[in-house]
């Protein structure tokens, strides 16, 4: 197992190199930071000075090597736009993203799995039809629409929840969190719900289709024959066997939401990192984008590694050597 983990981390080192190179070149072909940063009335000299100041006048390979050298020294660079160390920028916003994604994930699992299992078990129940209908509509309504609808209903009409922003936070170990703060939590609910809708739909449907296969296996029959409580039958025997696809999608979505939930962050003005990435791409802020992508890749590698380990825990037949 330890070998397996070590080998995986080794592989990801190569991955990070590839990713940073891709992004480096990608940002280069997309737009020219000097063109974006220089003011309207910048002179040629201004532009040249700007390029020189950021090392953008050097050939791209040299820029990349310099960047790599800095990374190895732990220096991820300074934002072109904000003039601040990129790691500061990212970590400043990370908690906001993490907590809202965490809440969404929990909502997705807590609502999705039971609803899915219910519909899997009660195929002919009218409630099942309703769930199926609602989840389909839930995921076919575009995310931004949903967001706006939520705002309209819960903030504008009912005035239950604030429409935008992050609200007050509580500091825990130097990290600002809304989660632990009743007022802060109110601000979190809408964005989290917006992220959660798709998750709930996915989890519901995965759980449902899994249930419809596992429920008919001999071992489920026997487990029923044993007369154990339904809660255990479902919570343990059934759940364990339908969890692999759910874990897979949870892992993928976890990463995706942390990294790229830009629509939600934009509509709700939630100060998360997804928006930082988008802004940085648009503003040609290469250091931020590259550092961000390195971190995100690392995160995905870790999340998927954990998912792989969970597979082996869930299904003892799976073993990694």
């Amino acid at each position: 197992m330890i070998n397996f983990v070590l080998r995986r981390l080794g592989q990801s080192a190569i991955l990070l190199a590839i990713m940073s190179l891709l992004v480096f070149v990608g940002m280069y072909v997309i737009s020219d930071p000097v063109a974006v940063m220089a003011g309207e009335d910048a002179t040629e000299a201004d532009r040249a000075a700007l390029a020189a100041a950021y090392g953008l006048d050097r050939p791209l390979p040299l820029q990349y090597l310099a960047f790599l050298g800095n990374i190895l020294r732990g220096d991820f660079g300074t934002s072109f736009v904000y003039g601040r160390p990129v790691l500061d920028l990212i970590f400043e916003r990370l908690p906001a993203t993490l907590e809202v994604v965490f809440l969404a994930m929990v909502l997705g699992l807590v609502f999705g799995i039971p609803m899915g299992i219910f519909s899997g078990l009660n195929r002919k129940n009218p409630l099942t039809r309703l769930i199926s209908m609602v989840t389909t509509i839930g995921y076919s309504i575009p995310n931004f629409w949903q967001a706006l609808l939520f705002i309209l209903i819960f903030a504008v009409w009912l005035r239950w929840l604030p429409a935008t922003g992050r609200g007050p936070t509580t500091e825990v170990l130097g990290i600002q969190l809304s989660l632990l703060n009743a007022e802060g939590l109110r601000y979190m609910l809408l964005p989290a719900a917006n992220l959660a809708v798709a998750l709930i739909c996915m989890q519901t449907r995965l759980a449902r289709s899994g249930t419809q296969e596992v429920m008919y296996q001999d071992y489920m029959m026997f487990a029923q024959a044993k007369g154990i409580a339904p809660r255990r039958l479902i919570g343990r025997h059934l759940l364990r066997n339908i969890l692999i696809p759910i874990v897979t999608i949870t892992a993928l979505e976890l990463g995706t939401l942390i990294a790229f939930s830009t629509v939600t962050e934009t509509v709700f003005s939630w100060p998360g990192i997804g928006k930082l990435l988008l802004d940085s791409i648009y503003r040609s802020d290469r250091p931020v984008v590259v550092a961000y992508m390195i971190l995100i890749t690392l995160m995905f590698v870790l999340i998927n590694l954990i998912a792989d380990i969970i597979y082996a825990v869930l299904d003892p037949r799976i073993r990694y050597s």
Partner: protein
Amino acid sequence: MSAIKLSAEPSRLDPLLAPFRHYPAAIAGLVGIVIFALAALFAPLIAPQNPFDQNQLDIMNGLLSPMSEMMDGRVSLLGTDAVGRDILSAVLYGMRTSLLVALLAVGIGLVIGVVLGLLAVMRGGWVDAIIMRAVDLTVSFPGVLLALMLLAVFGSGVDKVILALAIGIWAQNARMVRAVGLSEMKKDYIAAARIGGIGDLRIMFHFLLPNAISPVLVLMPMAISGAIVAEATLSFLGVGVPITEPSLGLLISNGNDYLLSGRWWISVVPGLVLVLMVLCINVVADRLRDHANPYLQVRG
């Protein structure tokens, strides 16, 4: 025993339609899909206006509510958008792009993802490692960045959108199939197949695939609606269709700005079409999946 056959000759469609017999909802879904497909296909014949022809558009016709008269005296059934496009026509035309893009992107993403996922399970070792690291790389890569890169290198076009979307989709499918396949791989029927001298490819496609694809199919309708919406984002970035030839997704996202002010038709109409379309696809996909599920092969 004495099942009465109404049609004398069993038609060739019979086996295709078999899963739907006795399932009115699924039949409705199927009919819906056919209607949408026909509508998209024959949009130029049905649509009162060619919304891509700039000569037929006039901003003076903009923002008309449903059933109002346009300057040329014709009535716009579902209203117009800000630049004077007849929403009904725009939706019909937009559906063509969206369906093409979404189905192709999801199809390509599905095929590539499933094949690579199965290959990873089958071969394991370094093949698995390379494929899965490619997955890690792909899922980490932001779609916007990818799209802009494609734009910068290859220029704009629907094919680039399909490519960009398919890249987003394959990785998820590959991981899903692999995860489920890992478990299936350890079961005795695979061992039996191996002993039976059945080649890796056949094991992959006839043994692993049917037993591991279910979650991928579950997520497919979601992927389709996701792709339709994502296409709009990419078009906004300049990668996809020009804004003068809006797709369904683009219509919805453009219409978004008019939701609050009460000009709901601009985004609600295309939005409803999207929802209905996905609903139909979903009902049909669900039925097909249930039909393929050996444990559910009874009328329910």
